[in-house]
């Protein structure tokens, strides 16, 4: 069975989404267990795939039994072998943690919610695992459409914010499709590895250049890279907490994976960094993204919105790292995909818990929360330390690689931006801690019986959160292994 893991990984969530959808009409209580089982299988196969890749190298899975350029094939190498378990595990933990929140927010629509959730995970896993450029577009649209549905159920402003996201997301996906069309017209192929094989004689072609630029702009739109980030903060802020803690950690990170995949596999680093002279400009854009993200986060008086601007800044980290054009920068970017997915999950789950208990996430709602929700706030401290980049947590190590990459590329602006953003993060989070710790709990909702006592979120929400916090530290401690055994092989040897 283990040679069928690539198919199971995507097909099990898809099939279970359909079953959940039917179960939603029959008996709502069945939805959650089916979803958990399906994502459990998906996470299991993702980890199994990673182990197989470590053991045997690249796996090729032919769908429908047709060999690659004719049919669609899955390629699992070290790069997506690493990203897959992250996506599957983040989705799995978030699913378990949000059971109560979902029941609280959508008592009537549990079935559709889990259906969309599973379809979204299917889409994201499919994007990561596929080796076909057009298949990626279809999966991109699945992830996007379900994402719009999930995000639009929230506060009053959520539909408008999501509609703006939909316009931008559609333009992004269409640009990607157009880029694939340009590649198709000059090479005649849709398979990523095959395109990479056919491209080298065409590196001077204007069509290839345009294809690359269009693809990149499309992917940047989808990941909210700086001038194109305007849709993200509102869409993520006004959404319900179960959806935003799935989408905020995963969607931007998966899009960064797509960008790195396009750079490393489809267009090859020689073309991107040697033939084109764009990398310096893009890194400067990333610098602006980081600085603007940090500054805009400072201006917010609202925890969730502040975190969304941090997401924008983190996108800048990864794009900048990937475009530095050297091994350390790329290592940092790939490592940061893993770390950032986990730490964004951690902080957004904290917001979820706070919303569940306090029904708000503005700064004035946070007063006295250290006394009220000690475990949740403890996890926030670890998540914040990771975002700032304090040593035992994982955020430190990826930032370290990014800074080393910036120095060896001689790009001191990027290094300065990284340090500046870390310092701003310190300010941001200590401001939050100050409010949560020192200011007494404000009883403005008037239905709290124990103003000074502990009133933690339910155990089913706190335990997954603490697990994520522990994972943050563990990943930090095992960074060396991850880099030496996985990421090192994910980057082609031609890149130094």
């Amino acid at each position, binding site marked *: 069975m283990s040679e*069928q893991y690539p*198919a199971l990984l995507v*097909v099990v969530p*898809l*099939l279970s*989404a*359909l*079953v959940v*959808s*039917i179960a*939603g*009409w029959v008996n709502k209580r069945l939805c959650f267990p089916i979803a958990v089982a399906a994502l459990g299988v998906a996470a299991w196969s993702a980890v199994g795939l990673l182990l197989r890749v470590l053991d045997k190298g690249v796996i090729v*899975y032919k*769908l*429908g*039994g*047709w060999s690659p*350029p*004719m*049919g*669609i094939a899955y390629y699992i190498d070290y790069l997506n072998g690493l990203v897959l378990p992250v996506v599957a595990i983040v989705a799995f933990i978030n699913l378990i943690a949000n059971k109560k929140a979902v029941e609280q927010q959508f008592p*009537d*629509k549990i079935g*559709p*919610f889990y*259906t*969309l959730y599973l*379809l979204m995970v*299917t889409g994201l896993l*499919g994007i990561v695992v596929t080796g*076909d450029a*057009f*298949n990626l577009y*279809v999966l991109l*649209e*699945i992830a996007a*459409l*379900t994402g*719009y*549905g999930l995000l*639009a*159920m929230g506060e009053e402003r959520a*539909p408008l914010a999501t509609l703006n996201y939909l316009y931008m997301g559609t333009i992004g996906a269409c640009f990607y499709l157009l880029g694939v069309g*340009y590649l*198709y*017209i*000059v*090479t*005649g*192929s*849709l398979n990523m590895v095959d395109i990479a094989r*056919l491209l080298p004689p065409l590196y001077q*072609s*204007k*069509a290839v*250049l*345009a*294809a690359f*630029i*269009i693809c990149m702009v499309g992917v940047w739109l989808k990941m909210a890279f700086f001038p194109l980030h305007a849709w993200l903060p509102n869409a993520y802020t006004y959404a319900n907490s179960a959806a935003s803690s799935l989408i905020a950690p995963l969607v931007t990170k998966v899009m960064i994976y797509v960008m790195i995949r396009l750079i490393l596999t489809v267009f090859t680093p020689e073309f991107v960094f040697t033939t084109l002279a764009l990398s310096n400009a893009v890194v400067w854009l990333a610098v602006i993204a980081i600085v603007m993200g940090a500054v805009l986060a400072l201006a917010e008086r609202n925890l969730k919105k502040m975190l969304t601007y941090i997401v924008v800044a983190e996108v800048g980290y990864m794009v900048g790292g990937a475009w530095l054009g050297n091994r350390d920068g790329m290592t940092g970017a790939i490592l940061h995909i893993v770390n950032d997915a986990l730490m964004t999950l951690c902080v957004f789950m904290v917001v979820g818990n706070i919303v569940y208990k306090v029904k708000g996430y503005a700064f004035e709602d946070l007063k006295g929360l250290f006394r009220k929700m000690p475990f949740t706030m403890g996890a926030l401290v670890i998540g914040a330390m990771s975002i700032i980049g304090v040593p035992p947590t994982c955020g430190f190590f990826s930032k370290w690689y990014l800074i080393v990459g910036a120095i060896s590329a001689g790009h001191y602006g990027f290094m300065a931006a990284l340090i500046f953003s870390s310092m701003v993060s310190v300010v941001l989070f200590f401001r939050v801690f100050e409010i949560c710790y020192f200011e007494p709990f404000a009883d403005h909702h008037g239905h709290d019986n124990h103003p000074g006592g502990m009133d933690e979120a339910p155990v089913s929400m706190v335990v997954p959160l603490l697990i994520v916090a522990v994972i943050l530290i563990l990943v930090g401690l095992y960074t060396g292994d991850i880099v030496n055994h996985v990421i090192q092989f994910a980057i082609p040897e031609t890149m130094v």
Partner: protein
Amino acid sequence: MKIIGLIITFLTGALLFYAADDFPAWSDPASPASTYLSPHFIEKTMEETSVPNIVTAVLADYRGFDTMFETAVIFSAGVVCFFLLRISRREEEEPETRSYRHVLTGVTIQLKEGHKMPPSADFERIDSMWTPPDLIIKTGCRLMIPFVQLFALYVIAHGHHSPGGGFQGGVILGASFILLAISHDPTTAVRRTSEKLIGILCAVGVLIYAGTGALCLLLKLNFLDYSALAGILHVDPITARSHGILIVEIGVGIAVLATMIWIYNNISSAGRYRQGL
């Protein structure tokens, strides 16, 4: 905003014009796109899948995995529309007056707040903006719908030999139900195709597709490799591929049919399911 829009538009346009210069000439038989992959599809489809319509063969077999997700996309659009718009009876705000229509005579009555009609088969609840459907349109559509549906079934069944297939047929079949809903009123249409039925059919359609693929997996071949079905269908592997394509096309047809109705019902009645277009 208009100026920014113009600038962005012209920048994009300029980039595309610039790149179009390097394209192979239009309709050139020697262009890479026409010489690299497509000859294989054109020349080998008949012997590998025994389906004369190459588009159908490539759609449902060579790139069947794409099509499965295409069906999943349309399914998720249906679920999203339901998830966003459908208003459950609990959340619905009560209007001041309730309107009822006598089914046989078409006489409408209004009851003030607090008064409810006892449930009976003779009266049905309607919106205040209800207008009686026109007799000519009603009869005309009633005459057209069976032929539309027959054509849709033909399109699905004949997708191997002529343009068409599960998707087009499903849309036409769905359109016939939408026509019913437009020409009569949504309540009539919903009575025939209840919401629960539609919701389940959507999932069942995609399930037929994905389930066929999973069945191939259980029969020890790769996902969606229809030749695995040869043993079950008692035919040779090539014909099994042709039959496999038909099975999944039917699945696509069911899913699309149900989703089109579902989306239409939710959008036209804004989730209230009583009166619409």
